[in-house]
């Protein structure tokens, strides 16, 4: 049986206690997307600014949630800031693969990561600190906590693509 230390790694607690990129961005120009975990009521808000070169020039995270959802959102914001949208999507896919491919979407339309998608993804993406969240897969009910921010991010990218 997996213990608490598998789930609550120190880096996770650090991001929970001191979340990075927490706050809001002015909309417009930023894009705002809300995500909900219907199981527990957690809400997350992702604000993204993308520049003319397709770069995620800024990202802020709002909302409330448990240590897993909040730390995952915090690490996500660091992982995708300054990356291109395509790179950010690849990181998202890699992270969701880390979280098990059977996880079903909870973030809204357009954010499903189906198993087939992963075959085409470069497996060499370095997730860095995010790998600390790997222990979450041993606690299946918490996977949705970890993926909430990422599903919301995917939805935000889809919305931005539709708008442009």
């Amino acid at each position, binding site marked *: 049986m997996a213990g*608490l230390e598998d789930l609550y790694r120190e880096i996770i607690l650090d991001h929970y*206690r001191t979340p990075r990129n927490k706050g809001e961005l002015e909309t417009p120009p930023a894009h705002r997307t809300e995500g909900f975990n219907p*199981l*527990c009521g*957690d809400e997350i808000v992702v604000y993204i600014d993308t520049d003319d070169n397709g770069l995620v020039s800024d990202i802020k995270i709002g909302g*409330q949630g448990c*240590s897993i959802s*909040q730390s995952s959102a915090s690490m996500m914001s660091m992982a995708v800031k300054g990356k291109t949208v395509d790179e950010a999507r690849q990181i998202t896919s890699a992270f969701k693969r880390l979280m098990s491919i059977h996880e079903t979407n909870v973030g809204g339309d357009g954010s499903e990561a189906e198993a087939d998608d992963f075959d085409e993804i470069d497996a060499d993406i370095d997730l860095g600190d995010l790998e600390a969240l790997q222990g979450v897969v041993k606690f299946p009910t918490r996977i949705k906590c970890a993926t909430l921010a990422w599903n919301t991010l995917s939805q935000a990218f889809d919305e931005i693509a539709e708008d442009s």
Partner: protein
Amino acid sequence: MSTPTLDVAAIRKDFPILSQVQDGKRLVFLDSAASSQHPTQVLDAMNDIYLHSYANVHRGVYQLAERATSAYESARDSVARFIGAPDPNEVIFTKNATEAINLVAQSWGRQNLKPGDAIVLTLMEHHANIVPWQMIAAELDCEIRWVPVTDEGELDLTDLDQLLDGAKVFAFTSMSNVLGTINPVARLTQAARAAGAISVVDACQSVPHFSTDVAELGADFIAFSAHKMLGPSGIGVLWGKKDLLDAMPPFLGGGGMILNVTTEGFTADGVPGKFEAGTPPIVEAVGLGAAVDYLENIGMDLIRQHEVELTAYAMRTLTERVGDDLLIMGPSEPAARGGVLSLSLADVHAHDVSQVLDEHAVCIRPGHHCAKPLMRRFDVNATARASVYIYNDIDDIDALADALVAARDFFSL
């Protein structure tokens, strides 16, 4: 002579699931408000039907079918007796309380509601007593009005008469599944009647825990689920006044709910058959009947007394042990509430609290408890809810306190 108390040790022997050990620790089950456990008497009654008397009901003329039908119908009699229903035919078996409320909203609502009519709900409702009304309101263009909730977690009835003015439906819970608040049901149904509205009572949290008399409550409909009162999942109850049920159209169509079917149309059966389309939850009904017998055998007043004592002990102990970091939502007087304690632990999210509690083999429920409007009212996303029943004792509460202290220490900033 000393006051009788519940013999929890003896009761626990009837619940083998509770004697299991999780990671070397005694299992502490404090989630009965979500779904309760089953005594062997319920399991044996269900198994006995499967082993000796199973067949479809109301169909066959062979002896097995006669026995199955008789067992199914005597469960209806038991439930009617348990809630003081004057006529067992007023007891409709549904899939769960949610379906029971949907039945009223769709059948009574579609027949009686018109555009502009008002439906009154309270802010402390479970989604099961909100969404069915929102669905029919959206379809028929009705207005929904909300009875507010005070900071203490009680209904604010200051403007009740205005809210009910011209309303057609007043749907409310007898006891909050989040706050434990026990509502003054008789007073509320009387107010509804005075305003010309029907009253629909979500009684899921009260029927399992204290004695229920539908005449005393004065309600037009009450709904509850077997799985919160020691019975199986898959069966719930709608009780309604006979004249109302008689006048309502069927909800679901199919076999078992008709008198006649031709190529031109159908004639519906009378109650309860009219509302029990398809093969019903036969064995589940027998399980519910056995659960009712089990509860009656203990005595609902003794159960209520036990839960008030345990709730008082829990509120005192948790406050002493965990201190100011812990907020217990809802009424502060144990006798004014049921055995449901929604807890907020300082900055620790309910999901994280429950995860640490699970390490201590303590089962509680984190989340919004299907009551998001209420959670928004109190500006919280999630709480950790502990709820007690007949098989819980002070050892369970002490284990909860230990685990909460551990959770606080683990996440201390």
